[in-house]
C-alpha cells in the first residue's frame, strides 16, 4: 500500500480488521513485526526517526476525552508545539491558526471540560494541526460525533486537503469514503481493496469484498440507471438532491 502526499485516503473494514493498527503504524506508535513501513521516506522501525515521523504525521483518536491533556483550550492546543521546542511566539501563532481553522478561536480561554463532544473532537483536531503536520491520520474520529459535528469535521478536513495536506481517515461509515480520493478496504488484517474511491462505488466490487452496499449508493445507482441523475453526479445526498431539483425543474 502506497499513499502519495496530498491524497485523501479512507480506510474501511470490519471490527478487528486492523484499521487502528494500520493508523498507529503511520505515526510510529506501532512498528511492523513483519515487512516494512516507510513514512516520508523514514523507516518507522528506526527509533531515532520515530520522533521526526510524529512531527510529520499527526493523529486524532476516536475518543477526544482521552487525548486532552490540559484544562484550558489554548493550553491544550499548545501542548504539541511545546513538545517540538518552538519559541513562544511561534507556538502562539500556531495555536491561533489551529483554533481559527477548527472554529474554536472564541473558546480559547474556556475550560476543556465545558466543551461539547463535537467541540472536544475539533479541539483534538486543533491540537494535531498545531503541530503543522504534512499528514493527518484520523482513527474513527467521527464515530462519536452527531451528524452536525461530523459535517463540521469533514468540512475542516476538506479545506486542509485542498491546501495540500495528506488525510488518512479510518472510518466504519461507508458514506465517508466519498470525500476521499482513494479507499483501502481491510479484511481480517489483509488489504482486500486499495484504489480510487470511484472504482469501489460499484455493486459488484462491494459484493466481491463481502461488504453490504450502503442504501445511499443503491439509490444513486438506481436514479442514474433511470436517467434521473447526471453520470458525473457524486453519491452525496446534497449532490443528488441538487441534481434532481435541476432535472425535475422544481
Amino acid at each position, binding site marked *: 500500500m502506497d499513499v502519495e502526499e496530498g491524497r485523501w485516503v479512507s480506510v474501511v473494514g470490519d471490527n478487528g480488521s486492523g484499521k487502528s493498527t494500520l493508523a498507529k503504524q503511520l505515526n510510529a506508535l506501532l512498528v511492523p513485526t513483519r515487512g516494512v513501513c516507510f513514512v516520508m521516506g523514514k523507516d518507522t522501525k528506526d527509533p531515532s526517526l520515530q520522533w521526526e515521523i*510524529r512531527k510529520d504525521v499527526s493523529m486524532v*483518536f476516536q475518543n477526544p476525552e482521552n487525548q486532552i491533556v490540559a*484544562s*484550558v483550550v489554548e*493550553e491544550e492546543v499548545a501542548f504539541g508545539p511545546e513538545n517540538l521546542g518552538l519559541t513562544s511566539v511561534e507556538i502562539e501563532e500556531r495555536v491561533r491558526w489551529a483554533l481559527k481553522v477548527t472554529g474554536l478561536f472564541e473558546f480559547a480561554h474556556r475550560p476543556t471540560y465545558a466543551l461539547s463532544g463535537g467541540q472536544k473532537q475539533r479541539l483534538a483536531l486543533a491540537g494535531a494541526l498545531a503541530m503543522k503536520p504534512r499528514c493527518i491520520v484520523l482513527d474513527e474520529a467521527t464515530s462519536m460525533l452527531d451528524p452536525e459535528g461530523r459535517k463540521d469535521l469533514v468540512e475542516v478536513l476538506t479545506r486542509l486537503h485542498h491546501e495540500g495536506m495528506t488525510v488518512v481517515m479510518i472510518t466504519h461509515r461507508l458514506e465517508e469514503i466519498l470525500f476521499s480520493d482513494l479507499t483501502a478496504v481491510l479484511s481480517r488484517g489483509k488489504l482486500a481493496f486499495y484504489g480510487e474511491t470511484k472504482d469501489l462505488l460499484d455493486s459488484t466490487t462491494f459484493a466481491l469484498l463481502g461488504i453490504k452496499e450502503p442504501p445511499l449508493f443503491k439509490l444513486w445507482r438506481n436514479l442514474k440507471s433511470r436517467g434521473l441523475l447526471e453520470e458525473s453526479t457524486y453519491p452525496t445526498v446534497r449532490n443528488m438532491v441538487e441534481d434532481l431539483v435541476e432535472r425535475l425543474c422544481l
Partner: protein
Amino acid sequence: MHFLEHLSLGQYVPAKSFIHSLDPRSKVLAVMFLITSVFLANTTLWPYVIWFVLIVIISSLSNISFKTVVTSTRPVLILIVFTLAINLFFADGRELFRIAFISITEEGLLTGIKMGLRLFYLVLFANITMMTTSPIELSDGIESLLSPFKRYGLPAHEFAMMMTIALRFIPTLLDETDRIMKAQLARGADLDSGGIIKRFKALIPVLVPLFVIVFQRAEELAVAMEARCYRGDYGRSRMRPLMWGVCDSLYLSAILFISASGVILDRWIL
C-alpha cells in the same frame, strides 16, 4: 449523587484578573507561607480574622465571588466537622457540660474550632490558588520551584505533569463515576441505604469499573501524548514562559508580611 453535580474542588476558573495574571511560583510560595502561618498560630482566634479578610481581598482581586470560593470547600466539610468532633469529644480540660458519658471541655471546644478552622483555611488557600492558576501553569510553577532538586534525582517535570493530568481528569472522572452510579442504580443497585459497611460494599460495583476505566484512559492518554511528540521535559518549550514581575514580588511580600503578622500577633502580642 447531587454532591457530584456541584463539586468544584480546585477546579480552574478562567478569568482576567490581577491574581490570574501573577506568576504561578509567587502564588505557590504565597499559599505555602499562608498554610505554614495557619499551623504556627495556635494560641488565639484573632489571626483567623486577619486571614478571613485576606481571603475576601484575594477573591475580589481574582474576580471570583467569595461565595464560590467558600462553596468549593464543601467536599471537605465532612472532614472539617470530623476534626472538630474528635477534638470536642476527646480532649481533657475544664468541663463545660456533659452529654451522657461524654464530657465537653473548654479546651476541647477551642482546640476543635481551631483545628477545624485550620483545615478550612488550608483548603481555602489551596483552592483559591488552584481556581486562579491553570493546571499547566501550576505544574510549570511547581516544576520550576522543584528544579533545584533535579540534581538530587527528583523527577520534577514528571511530578508536575502527573499533577496537571490528575487535575485535568477530576471533572471527567466525576462524570464517569456519576454515569456508573446511574447505570448501577438503573439495574437495581441500592447505594443509599444501610449502614457504613453495607454502603461501602454497595460501592464496589461502582469502584471496580471506575478503576478499569481509569487504567484504560491512562493508557490511551499516554499513547495520545506520545503521538504528539511528548518526550518528558527533553527539548520542551513553553507557550508562556514563566516571568517573575514586580507585581509578584509585591504580592509575595504582602502575603509574607500578613502571614508573619498573624503568627507574631498570636504568639507574642495577643
